[in-house]
């Protein structure tokens, strides 16, 4: 019970209350659950009996390909994302308001849908095939391998760099540029010595995020037939357990390395926005003749990341519906399943990490940090690895056996994998009930539960909903864990699309893809862009 005291500066620094035992135990439990899958995979891999040499020989190639693809994609995304961010925020590029929306939109296409759209586009009758035919070029017969994977993944991941870097760029105070110029530095030297240090941390962090994303990617590499570690895990999970676990362990270790690197980068002194900064409206750099190539770059990126995939999906979908080959009713079941598991996962994730948020915001006790690390671990480890681990756990634990092949297990996998996305908003929700308000409500409303219902919850709701929304967005697009853990006969939109493409049913897949893209676009707009662009 919070005892109201004399007028103290409590409203400045919320007084920290020691966390009680129940909360500590809950935190420990949450941290354990989130960290368990990764630990289990590592332990299982470590216990593999002596055949390490053939295993290493077997996994060397996929590991090399995974790293090759991830490095290529993250570098491309870093360069494209930074260039576009600079063009959109610092220059007088014609039509930049429109570009600002268009160039972020590839974010809403799950990369496996993007890869599928290219494959379907190049197939006879596809939009790329027709276009190339029309100009007299023989269309390539296949869309496969490193090049294809690189193109697809780069085209759909650069917004992860574009968004944070442009947010960062627009906070460089004009007076910093002016100072550097007056101290004798040319525009280019000013860019290198003032602007680059300002964006360096966020550029590095977002590039690592893309690296992690590519490393964990399954759908796209499976469709373009590029043998990475994830594909090995997926292909050998039933027939060759040791290989599958070895590859999964390698993935988990690589992911952990990337996350540690990211944390070290974040730990370095961040260049922060100064509150006292005068809001001199920044003057935009005049591109002059360079506006033409700059526009061409934007158009090219938008074509690859947005126009071609949408046109390809649209053409097949339109054809399928017109010929009556696609029964829209077939989509109802997958759509309903997607909605049910995603909403359940979102709600559960928000609730699951709430104790951790509570402990870290209001009590700041060290255990909360450890639990948060566990939650972050769940996000870092590829969804495929979590799924593999949960499947193994349920199959080999007598009491949990009946959860194998259940939608409940799938929801647990989602929560473990995406819980981190709810943690930040949950902490924000905790902070949105200021200490004086808490104290005032304690004086006015004696019942603790009524207090929570009348004061705390209404204040926290917007942030809780936002956190749930982010989890929802991720689960709707999730493929690898869904593929592994879906019960027989249970299909979500993502798995329906994936199987339809694997089997070459382009028309059916096109319709489902457009539906998924529409849902994802609406959620992205509501949760990410509207805040990012207006804020």
């Amino acid at each position, binding site marked *: 019970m919070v005892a109201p005291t004399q007028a103290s500066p409590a409203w400045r620094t919320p007084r920290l209350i020691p966390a009680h035992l129940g909360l500590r135990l809950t935190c420990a439990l949450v941290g354990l659950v989130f960290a368990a899958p990764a630990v289990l995979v590592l332990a299982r891999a470590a216990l593999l009996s002596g055949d390490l040499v053939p295993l290493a020989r077997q996994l060397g190639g996929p590991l090399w390909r995974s790293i090759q693809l991830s490095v290529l994609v993250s570098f491309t995304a870093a360069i494209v994302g930074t260039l576009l961010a600079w063009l959109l925020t610092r220059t007088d590029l014609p039509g930049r308001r429109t570009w600002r929306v268009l160039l972020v939109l590839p974010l809403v296409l799950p990369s496996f849908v993007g890869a599928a759209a290219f494959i379907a586009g190049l197939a006879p009758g596809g939009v790329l095939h027709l276009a190339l035919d029309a100009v007299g070029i023989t269309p390539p017969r296949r869309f496969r391998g490193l090049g294809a994977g690189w193109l697809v993944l780069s085209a759909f991941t650069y917004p992860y760099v574009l968004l944070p870097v442009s947010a960062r760029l627009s906070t460089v105070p004009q007076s910093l540029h002016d100072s550097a110029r007056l101290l*004798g*530095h040319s525009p280019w030297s000013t860019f290198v010595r*003032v602007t680059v240090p*300002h964006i360096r941390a966020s550029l590095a962090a977002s590039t690592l995020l893309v690296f992690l994303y590519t490393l964990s990617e399954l759908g796209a590499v499976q469709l373009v037939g590029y043998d990475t570690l994830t594909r090995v895990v997926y292909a050998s999970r039933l027939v060759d357990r040791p290989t599958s676990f070895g590859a999964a362990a390698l993935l988990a270790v690589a992911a952990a390395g990337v996350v540690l690197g990211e944390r070290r980068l974040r730990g370095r002194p961040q260049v922060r926005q100064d509150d*006292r900064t005068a809001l001199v409206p920044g003057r935009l750099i005049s591109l002059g003749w360079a506006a033409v190539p700059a526009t061409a770059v934007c158009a090219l990126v938008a074509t690859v990341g947005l126009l071609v995939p949408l046109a390809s999906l649209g053409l097949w979908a339109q054809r399928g519906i017109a010929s009556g080959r696609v029964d829209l009713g077939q989509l109802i079941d997958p759509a309903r399943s997607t909605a049910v598991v995603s909403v359940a996962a979102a709600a559960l994730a928000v609730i699951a990490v709430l104790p951790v948020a509570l402990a870290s915001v209001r009590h700041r006790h060290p255990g909360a940090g450890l639990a948060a690390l566990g939650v972050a671990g769940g996000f870092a480890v590829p969804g495929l690895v979590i799924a593999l681990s949960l499947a193994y756990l349920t199959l080999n634990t007598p009491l949990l056996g009946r959860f194998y092949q259940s939608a409940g297990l799938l929801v647990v996998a989602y929560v473990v994998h995406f819980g981190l996305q709810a943690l930040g908003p949950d902490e924000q929700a905790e902070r949105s009930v200021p200490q004086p308000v808490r104290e005032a409500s304690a004086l006015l409303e004696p019942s603790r539960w009524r207090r929570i219902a009348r004061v705390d919850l209404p204040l926290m709701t917007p942030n809780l909903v936002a956190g749930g929304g982010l989890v929802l967005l991720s689960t709707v697009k999730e493929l690898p864990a869904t593929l592994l853990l879906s019960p027989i006969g249970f299909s979500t939109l993502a798995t329906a699309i994936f199987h339809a493409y694997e089997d070459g049913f382009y028309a059916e897949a096109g319709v489902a893809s457009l539906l998924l893209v529409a849902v994802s676009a609406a959620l992205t707009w509501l949760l990410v862009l509207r805040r990012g662009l207006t804020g």
Partner: protein
Amino acid sequence: MGYAPGIDAVREVSLAVAPGETLALLGPSGCGKTSLLRAVAGLEPLRQGSITIGAVVVSGPGAWVRPERRRVGMVFQDGALFPHLTVAANVAFGLRSHARSETARRVDEVLSLVDLADYGERLPRTLSGGQQQRVALARSLAPSPAVLLLDEPFSALDAALRVQVRSEVSRILRQIAVTTLVVTHDQTEAFVLGDRVAVMRNGRVEQLDTPDGLYRRPANPWVAGFVGESNLLTGRVGPGRCVTTAIGPVPIEALPSRPDGTRLAVGDAATVLIRPEQVSVEPVGVGAGTATVAGVEYHGHDIRYRLQLDDGSTVIARCPPEPVHPRGSPVQIRFQGPATMAWQDGLVGTLDRSG
């Protein structure tokens, strides 16, 4: 340095700053003073007119020197320290052509000048607002600029700190005698820093004078009101260079002139400037006027009275702290001090319409 720009924010301004002099540009917000400063730095283009630094035309018809080549130092409102660099690296930022030892020596030199010799290895965010502003000053002084520009350099500091940093900067500017333009909307700041002060309004210079000249001989009622506290009383021109007002005769330096250049004659209506410290407040029975104390503000070093005259108008007076005349007590007030300024009555309104 000559200046005669014609950009929208500033019109027909012509100023010359002598070498080593500090000129303050004082005016309400939106009067164009910052635009002027940014034009000197080369951060804003000129549409007409020219700017000369030393013998070089840096902005003007057919002339344009890029900001980084102007040898202009500037201190911004927010300091604009590079947050990723240490204090020493910030100060060294503009010292590019120097050898390393030479750079280090110069950094130490200017940091000692601003009394922050031991702060070289610190990051800007670990410094207080006042220290940050002093580092910003050191950084702009390090390359020995031909002209130093200060843009509202203390406005981001809180009141107590502002006074302290202001005195400190004033001392430094006098010590190194760098040609300086400082922009401010704070009259005290302009007076403390400026050898001369240009009062600006609506893109024009209303008056350019020493602080003393501005205070004692304002060019018009608007400047009188903007620079310091003032009572503007109406009365009639009397014989012997004075204006007869409700508080008695007030001596004036010269007879006010009409817009056509002729002087006012005895009996014409006039507005006269009376500074609060030129009003003496005495117990009933001695002086010429009669008033009632309507408000008392006790400041310690003096007392500020709000006095209600018998005709209903209000006069502000600043008096020594004793005796204290309580609120409601009748007093007699009169003008005391040297001759002051007067203008044709109604000039205030005319000026406001023209602005």
